[in-house]
């Protein structure tokens, strides 16, 4: 029972859990939502002038990049993180803001409508690479920092889980913060990298369909 509770609100105890949640809400969930969105929905929505105008205003690399990466940076400032843990309204707003910012960030990459995606692909790759670099830098700072996030050094222990975490799992506050930083440094970067690979795969697939058939022969052709 307590384990189930922990899965729901582990971020009351562990910074690393909180970090995993951020990565899921900001990077994974919105990307999957966009990838799963039927094209017809986007078509319908874009037919409304107001939405189309809003999209045109937001869908600029500088804005979407700063929204996505900015959200990641903002929620990890010690003061903001502490406030989100102690002040209920902020705690409620946090996950929604992450999903929305994430969706804005991923829109130029994974928009259901190809004409709204960023071109040419090397620009999109650079967009993703610099997010990855920023994310890595933050991960490095958090991993190496001798200062610990205040809320996680001495968690309030609402479910009596603390002895299990500290003694059975042997996760000290330092190690917890290291895990969190490393999650941001390595796996989060892999998400960006996977997107870069997806971009290139799409790009090279285009090239082979648009070039005239230089290879008329069957497989194993001999020049």
């Amino acid at each position, binding site marked *: 029972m307590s384990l189930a509770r922990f899965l729901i609100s582990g971020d009351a105890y562990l910074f690393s859990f909180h970090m995993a949640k951020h990565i899921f809400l900001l990077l994974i969930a919105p990307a999957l939502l966009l990838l799963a969105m039927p094209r017809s929905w986007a078509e319908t929505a874009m037919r409304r002038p107001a939405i189309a105008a809003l999209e045109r205003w937001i869908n600029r690399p500088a804005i979407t990049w700063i929204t996505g990466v900015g959200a990641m940076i903002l929620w990890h400032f010690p003061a903001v993180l502490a406030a989100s843990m102690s002040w209920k309204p902020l705690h409620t707003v946090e996950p929604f803001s992450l999903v929305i910012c994430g969706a804005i960030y991923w829109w130029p990459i994974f928009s259901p409508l190809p004409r709204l995606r960023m071109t040419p692909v*090397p620009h999109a*790759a650079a967009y993703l*690479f610099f997010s*990855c670099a920023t994310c*890595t830098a933050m991960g*490095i*700072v958090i991993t*190496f*920092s*001798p*200062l610990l996030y205040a809320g996680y050094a001495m968690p309030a222990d609402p479910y009596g889980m603390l002895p299990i975490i500290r003694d059975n799992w042997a996760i000290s506050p330092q*190690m917890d913060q*290291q*895990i969190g930083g*490393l*999650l941001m*440094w*390595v*796996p989060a*970067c*892999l998400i960006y*990298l996977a997107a*870069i*690979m997806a971009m*290139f*795969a799409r*790009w*090279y*697939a285009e*090239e*082979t369909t648009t*070039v*005239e058939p*230089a*290879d*008329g022969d069957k*497989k*194993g*052709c*001999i*020049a």
Partner: protein
Amino acid sequence: VSDIPITPGLGVPEVMGAGYPQAERSTWLDWVSTVDHKRIGILYLLATLVFFCIGGTEAILMRIQLAWAGNTFLSPDMYDQVFTMHGTTMIFLVVVPLLLGLANYLTPLMIGASDMALPRLNAFSFWAFLFGGILLHFSFLNGHAPDAGWFSYTPLSDQGFSLRHGLDYWALALLGIGVGTIGTAINLIATIFNLRTDGLTIRRLPLFVWMVLVNSFLIIAALPALNASLVMLLIDRQLNAHFFTHVGGGSPILWQHYFWAFGHPEVYIMVLPAFGIISEVIPVFSRKEIFGYGFVAASTVAIGILSLGVWAHHMFAVGLGHAWDYAFGASSMLIAVPTGVKIFNWVATMWGGAIRFTTSMLFAIAFLFTFTIGGLTGVTFATVPVDWQLTDTYYVVAHMHYVLFGGTLFAVMAGLYYWFPKMSGRMLSESYGKVHFWLMFIGFHMAFFIQHILGLDGMPRRVYTYPALPGWTAMNMISSIGVLVLGISILVLLANIVSSLRAGAPAGPNPWNAWTLEWATSSPPPEHDFDAVPPVHGRRPLRDLSRSLITHPPAPPRRFSTIKVAMATFIASEAVFFVFLIAAYVFFHGATVEGPTARNSLNPPRTLIFTICLLASSGTILLAERSLTRSRQKSFRGWLALTILLGAAFLAGQGWEYSDLISKNIVPARNLFGASFFTLTGFHGFHVLCGLVALAALFGIAVRRNFGSKASSGLGAVAMYWHFVDAVWIVIFSLVYLTVWL
């Protein structure tokens, strides 16, 4: 297997294949003063051949010493120097410049250009590299070569444990080589971005060129980390600072992080162009297009990016903690995926092809075989407990030689046999070549396979001798004999090169019936490379040409301003350099320091005044540019002069601050604040000075004559640099000075 004859020049129009009248015999001065990419490429290859022979001799000396237990051929001290020099030479003076030399020779030819984008920078890069190489070896003449291994771990390499000057030579030489390498990377990027012939879009690039491009970006991202660590090591050694020693609160682990943040990408810098060579050679000798071009190209990017974020797997034995080990073990294993699939791409290219087993192809196949073994032993190291057992044993030595020698060098040999006809106009002898191949292949596996077993048995690397444990002498003897066989194979190669240069069969423009543009010009190519570049409509232009599939002229690719691309890349490399210096400041700022700190010794209001000067100069240079576009020469000169004055005022302010601090005995040797503060602000000041020199040069030109449109792009580049220097100062000022008020 097919025995289709290879017809020289098939599919190449007569005019392009025509032999070119050779210029009169060139003198040594022509070579020393050359800016031609082909000659510089050949100079690179010759220099690396010399260094390869030196490094190989060092290897033979080591293997003689290790041939049996308790040998006294080399003294322990001498052995330390020899293995350090062997590793440093092979990595920095052989493998990397060898690949850069090939890239230098081939890139313009493969993209239909007549030279590199910045020929004089190209010559500078080569001579910087050669100067570094000579400086490194000069340490022998000075009495003591570096002796702390190729990664020079601190504190062993710091002033306390290394009293002689070998490591100073090591650090300075590597700085020179690093500058040269970055210069070449900038040049290659600018060349590939801007000098492609019509129709050659990025997605049609020959894979060798694509991998050289990715590799150049990797160099820009990684090499500055080495340069930053080297200057910090030098400041430790020469100015008695304590970045990397426990004395005074420094951190030896920081050296390991910094070194491997460069060192791991370096592994891929040494192998990506080799992948490119293999991707050119295998399709041509299988008579098939590469299987999965898109995957091979895209996975190269993935390998490049992954390689930047996995360096801590070199440090599992340090005890960073379980969280570290899991994260980096997992990410390191992931690199095996894109790399492993590439192997399948090459094998699938050969599948069903009409394979011709030329020497070049044999080396390419040997690469696949050997590199796969080396890759697999690499995966075992990503498994943390295995790494703990095997780190610093001969298993590592075997792994790294399988990757670097059996991987990269075999690929380079494949490339040498493939492109030598293009460079010299003569074929290398196939019969010599086969002897060379088999001697090298057998010698290599004899020398290094057995080292896996020695390593598993616990034989440590870098130790000058070993006890007579059961089987160790026998295994070491096998390895030593293998190295001698390798040495003989190199002699066969040299004999082959010399005899082929004298009396090899004439190559003709396209002896292999290959597809890429370098085969559309004479062998060797004329000084301007091409009389006419064939039109490009796909990835195999010469093949398309022979089939008359071309109906319309190709569209020009997107091109950029060369000087701006070069400057932007240069700035990117400088940014990485500063990131490492800034990180060092922040890292040590968090440490507990006794004595002066930013809070009690700096004067932020005064620095703020000079900061405003520097920031204002960014505005004045913008105004100068605007005056120039409106062709108001007089106001342009005025704004330029004001920019110089403001920059000089900033430097004067820094001088004032420094003299204040030094008079209070706050110097790099005092404590970590002194060391990291002076390093960071000093290097920034140095950059301001360089910018001032460039601005003064522009001003000198502007005073003598009116600025034309050509010179204005130079002004644009200097302005970019100047804005960058200002941006770096904003970061430094906020971190160092503004935090005082927090």
